[in-house]
């Protein structure tokens, strides 16, 4: 799977392109994650790869197929779980699966068996003959995923799959994604949840403002943060002198001013640095007023590359 997109079609001149020179290549059989804040371009990337968004320029391929030029062939290979449920409200849960199978030309006996199997797997058997209009968000999300798996696609796209799910359902979902991957399938998921990216993905791309900022395994990415630990410090006032003094402390790799009073320190160690920081600050006439220490994480990586937290 390859994507090389330059923004959705015909954006008027004063609009900001959703994707800007985003290039990705995902080998078959991988669970790949797109991690980034809301509005980073994750869903647009999924849209470009699933025929739903036309890029102004660039190319997208699924296997040997050009996504835009060979849409029907591409649609056979992919299953898509959208960010917002789009279930067919005129049908029951079971009918949604059965008709989806029929759209993909699956014979009536096979699609009926598969629908029952998926309802069972997603713990929806008892609800199978109910209209989906009254389903809870979590049930709709489970059914959306079951539907995407109905035609046994080679590539499964999951756009924010666990948003709004309770922890129990999230764990069920993670198990099902892993199991699907073990059957040799490729999974591309988008998330702004670091735990999910860390727990599920073999490789990740961190995306912001339509660019890929970093790509690698979760461990590689975490190791790329200078030192690994981030100390977010806040002082009464912050001076250039203070910044350069902080840089001299043992184990400190990088010091960045966050705003007028904040300083982000990337270091090899965490809590043990604090007494030295406090002493140094007192010596420089800047009182330490707040400290937040985070251990190596993808969140820190995002912060390191963008100067912003994922949740900002």
């Amino acid at each position, binding site marked *: 799977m390859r994507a090389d997109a330059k923004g*959705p*079609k015909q954006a008027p001149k004063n609009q900001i392109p959703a994707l800007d020179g985003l290039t990705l290549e995902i080998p078959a059989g991988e669970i790949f994650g797109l991690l980034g804040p809301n509005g980073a371009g994750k869903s647009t990337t999924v*849209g470009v790869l*699933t*025929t*739903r*968004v*036309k890029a102004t320029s660039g190319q997208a391929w699924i296997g040997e197929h050009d996504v835009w030029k060979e*849409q*029907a*062939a591409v*649609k*056979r290979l*992919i299953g*898509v779980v*959208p960010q*917002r449920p*789009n*279930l*067919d*409200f*005129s*049908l029951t849960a079971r*009918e*949604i699966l059965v*008709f*989806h199978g*029929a*759209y*993909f*030309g699956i014979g009536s006996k096979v699609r009926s068996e598969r629908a029952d199997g998926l309802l069972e797997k997603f713990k929806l058997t008892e609800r199978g003959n109910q209209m989906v209009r009254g389903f809870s968000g979590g049930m709709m999300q489970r059914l959306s995923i079951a*539907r995407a798996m109905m035609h046994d696609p080679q590539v499964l796209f999951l756009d924010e799959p666990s948003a709004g799910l309770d922890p129990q359902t999230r764990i069920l979902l993670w198990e099902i994604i892993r199991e699907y991957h073990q059957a040799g399938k490729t999974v591309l998921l988008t998330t702004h949840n670091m735990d999910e990216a860390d727990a599920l993905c073999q490789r990740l791309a961190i995306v912001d403002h339509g660019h890929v900022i970093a790509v690698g395994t979760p461990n590689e990415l975490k190791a790329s943060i200078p030192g690994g630990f981030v100390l977010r410090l806040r002082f009464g006032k912050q001076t250039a002198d203070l910044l350069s003094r902080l840089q001299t402390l043992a184990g400190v790799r990088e010091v960045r001013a966050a705003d007028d009073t904040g300083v982000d320190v990337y270091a090899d160690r965490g809590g043990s640095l604090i007494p030295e920081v406090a002493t140094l600050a007192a010596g420089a006439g800047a009182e330490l007023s707040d400290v937040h220490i985070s251990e190596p994480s993808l969140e820190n990586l995002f912060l390191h590359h963008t100067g912003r937290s994922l949740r900002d």
Partner: protein
Amino acid sequence: MNWKTFFAMLARDAHVARRNAIQLFLQTFLQPLLFVFIFGRVMVGSGYMPPAYKSLLLPGIIAISMTFTGVWAVAMPLIAEFQWTREIEDRLLAPIGVSWIAIEKVIAGMLQALVSGLIVIPLAWLVLRPGVDISIHSPWTFAVVIMLVAAFSACGGLALGCSMNQQHIGLMFSLVMTPMIFFGCTYYPWSALKTFPILQKMVLVNPLVYASEGLRGSLVPQFSHLPMVAVLAALAFFDVLLLGVGLRQFGKKAVS
């Protein structure tokens, strides 16, 4: 072309229509039947209208029922599914060209319009009898007219459904459908407008005129009506035009 997908989508629409049959029935037939009852039965029975009006009215009522059904069956789900529930996305991701999904909607709408046209005949006959004098002299002409009318309604539904905003559904009915019906030669023949020569020319841009006049020509040819060749040509022209506009708009909606 992937016929399995196409027929599966058609089966889905038939399944949903069956499930909503009673609602569809009331929605489609109540208004025309009330109209037939008041104008055909009450007004004629009380002597305000001549008895022949019953036969003159029926083709217009069929045209209205078919047009309403076709437009409603295609436009309303498209407006809701594209703008609100996003339900259509599962079909947009089915392995078939996007235009075929629109064509499937048109075929489903045509079938519903045909069913409604063919049901309204016996129903109206029951309400109006005795004194309705309809006869199908040329079954082929009738079949072609009714197919073209069904296609016009469904293609119109596609064009409207993919161009209208969800907030403008009310406007669509008051600004498009209502004038279309009143200036559509449904309750009177086109020749009755001869005392309003400008209006008589202007209504010719309304496709419903050709639907009503075509049905009048094939069911009650004893009344004056537009020449059948002109009717067929105009209906074919509007079918192609509305389908073209509808497909273009559908394509725009399907991809962002």
